[in-house]
C-alpha cells in the first residue's frame, strides 16, 4: 500500500509576534512538527508495517521545512517530498489543499492520505477535507482509532471522536483520514535512521511540476487583523502550614473563581 502523509512545521510555542502587515513572525521560536501531524505519521507507519508498502511524507513550504521531513524519515517514512515554489508562499488553506491534491495525483498509486485534524498555528481544519474534495475521495475526520485498513479490499473502518460522541464509520479506499491526539503513541526517530535521513535525497517539486496554475491558488480569505495570544497569566502560590490547610485554601480559591 502507499500512504501519503501531509505534515507541516509550526512554531513550538504560541509566543509569536504579529508583523505590521498582519503576518506571523515566529523568529527565534523553535519549529516542530505540528502536534496532530505526528500522530498522522505514526498511524501511516503502523498501517504500512501491517500491510507492507511505503510511506511518503509531503510538505508544502520553504527550505526551512526540510527538518520536519527529515524527522519523519528518521521515524521511518520511506520518502519525502518538499513542494517548494516561491509562487506558493501565500496560498491559504484551500490553495494548499489544491497543491496537496495535485501531489497525490502525481504520485498516482495512493491508497490513503493522512494529515492532522488541523495545524496548531492556523487552525483552519480545512486542509484534509479540502484535499479529499479536490480528489473526490471520502474524508474521515477526527480519527482516533483505525480498526481496519485493507488496501486489498479497499476498505477502511475507523472511530471518529467528536466533542461528546464517537462514531464508527466505514469508507472505501482511497480515502483521506485526519487524525486527533492520542490516536497512537508517536515513536522517536531511530538513531540508525537519523543518519540515513540526513543523507536522504529529498526532491523539490514546483507548481509547474504539478501542472498547477498559480493564479488559481490565490487565497480567498484575507487577514484584516490578528491579535497575538495573550501572555501566559502568572501563577500564584498558596501558602499554608500543612497540606490540608493549603488544600482548603485552594478549594476556597476555586469556589470563588466559580471553577468548582
Amino acid at each position, binding site marked *: 500500500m502507499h500512504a501519503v502523509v501531509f505534515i507541516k512545521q509550526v512554531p513550538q510555542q504560541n509566543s509569536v509576534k504579529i508583523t505590521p502587515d498582519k503576518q506571523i513572525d515566529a523568529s527565534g521560536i523553535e519549529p516542530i512538527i505540528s502536534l496532530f501531524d505526528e500522530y498522522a505519521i505514526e498511524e501511516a507507519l503502523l498501517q504500512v508495517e501491517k500491510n507492507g508498502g511505503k510511506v511518503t511524507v509531503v510538505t508544502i513550504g520553504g527550505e526551512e521545512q526540510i527538518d520536519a521531513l*527529515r*524527522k519523519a524519515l*528518521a521515524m521511518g517514512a520511506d520518502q519525502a517530498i518538499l513542494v517548494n515554489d516561491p509562487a506558493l508562499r501565500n496560498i491559504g488553506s484551500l490553495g494548499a489543499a489544491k497543491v496537496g491534491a495535485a501531489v497525490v495525483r502525481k504520485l498516482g498509486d495512493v491508497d490513503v492520505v493522512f494529515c492532522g485534524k488541523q495545524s496548531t498555528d492556523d487552525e483552519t481544519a480545512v486542509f484534509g477535507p479540502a484535499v479529499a474534495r479536490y480528489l473526490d475521495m471520502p474524508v474521515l475526520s477526527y480519527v482516533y482509532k483505525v480498526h481496519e485498513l485493507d488496501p486489498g479490499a479497499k476498505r477502511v473502518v475507523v472511530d471518529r471522536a467528536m466533542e461528546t460522541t464517537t462514531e464508527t464509520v466505514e469508507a472505501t479506499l482511497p480515502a483521506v483520514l485526519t487524525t486527533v491526539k492520542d490516536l497512537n503513541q508517536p515513536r*522517536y*526517530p*531511530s*538513531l*540508525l535512521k*537519523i543518519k540515513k535521513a*540526513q543523507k536522504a535525497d529529498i526532491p523539490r517539486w514546483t507548481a509547474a511540476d504539478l501542472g498547477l496554475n498559480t493564479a488559481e491558488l490565490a487565497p480567498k480569505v484575507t487577514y484584516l487583523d490578528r491579535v497575538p495570544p495573550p501572555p501566559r497569566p502568572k501563577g500564584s502560590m498558596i501558602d499554608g502550614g500543612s497540606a490540608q490547610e493549603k488544600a482548603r485554601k485552594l478549594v476556597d480559591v476555586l469556589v470563588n473563581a466559580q471553577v468548582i
Partner: protein
Amino acid sequence: MDFTANYDMFLTEEHEMLRQTVRQFAEREVQPFIRDWDREGAKDESDMAHVRPVLKRMGELGLLGICIPERYGGAGMDYLSLAIVCEELERIDTFLRVVISVHTGLNSLAIFQWGSDEQKQKYLVPQAQGVKLAGYCLTEPNAGTDVAGMQSTARREGDYYILNGEKTWISLADVADHFLVVAYTDRSKERRGMTAFIVERTFEGVETHAIHGKLGVRAGNTGSVVFNNVRVPVANRLGEEGEGFKIAMSALDNGRYTVAAGATGLIQAALEASIRYAKERETFGQPIAQHQLVKRMVSHMVRKLDTSRLLVYRAGWMKNQGRRNSRETTLAKWHATVSSFEAADDAIQVHGAYGFSDEYPVERMLRNARGAVIYEGTRELQELLQADFAFGFRENNLLRRELPAYDPAEWSE
C-alpha cells in the same frame, strides 16, 4: 534561549536531531517520575523496580551503543553524539548518564578498543544492542585513587584464571550482566602486573550487594561485587597479561568524557531552572531576575556551561580524529564536574527555601553533582594530572591499541 546553538564548528543536523530525540525520551519517560524514584532509592528496602525498564528503553532506542559501529550492533554515530546523549540524559537525572558512563564509556568502548574479534562478537554486540548491561570494576575498599593499592588477584590455572577480590562503589553492581574487572596477575610488577578480564555475572562465585545511604544518584544502583574463586576463561582476558592498568586508564579517558558531558547537561538544567524561577518569583516589587546579585549567579552558570561544553566538544572532536586526548578529557572532566556542583549550589540559592526542598529539582542536582567530583578520578587527581601535563612530567603517550577514530562510512556498514 537555546544554549546549544552555535556549536556548528563541532555539530551537524544529525546531532541536533539526536539531541531532540534523547531530550524527548528523558522528558517524557523519566522526568515525570524522577522525584519519586529518587525518594524511593533512598530507602534501604527499595527494590529499584524502575531501573531495568528504563535501561531496556535506552537499549531499544540505541542509546547504549550510540558510538559503536553498526557491525557491532551499535548506532554507528560519532563520539560527539556520545556527549550529546550524556548531556541530555543528565539534564534530567544523573542516574541515566551514569549508565552510559559505565556501560558504554568504561566497558563497551574498552572492549571496542582492546578486545579480540571473538570478544567483540560475544560481549560488545549484545552490549551495544542493549540486550546485556555492563559495569566496570576498578575501585576496592582499600584502593580508589591509588589503583596500585588494589588487592584483587587472578591466578592462572590452565585455561582459566582464578579471580579473588572485592570491588566496591560499582555502578550497576546488581544490574550489570558483564563486568570489566582489573586484578593483579603479578603483584611484584606493580602497575605492570595488573590484567583486565571480562567477567559474567553468572560465573560461579560472583556476588553483588547494594550500597544504601548514598547522598546522590539515588535513583541508580551502586554496590559491591565480590569474586570468590571465580574461574574466568583465558579467552576472557582483555588485552595481554600486565596491560590491565593501561586498559583501565584508557577506559577512564572515555568514562571521564561522559562524566564531563553529563555535568554540562546538569549545569544547563540548573541554569534553566534558575531562569524560570527568577522570572516568576518577585521580591521588593520586581522579579528577582532584576536583582544584580541574582543576575551574577545566572551569568556565572552561563560561563560555566559554555566553557564546559567547549572543553567537552574539543575532547570529542579529538576522539573523532583518533587523537590521544587524556589531557583534554581530564581537563573537561575536572572543570565541568566542579562547575556543575557550583551551578547546582547557586541554583538552590536562586530558589531560596524552595530550592531546599525536593519540590524543585535543584537540590537533587546538588546531591547528584557531588559524586562526579569524586568518581572517575577525584578533583584532586585531575588537578595533579593537569599540573603534570603542564610541567611536562606527563604526556599523552601512544598506546598499543588506540580508540578507533570515527569513520562515518565504515561505522554504518
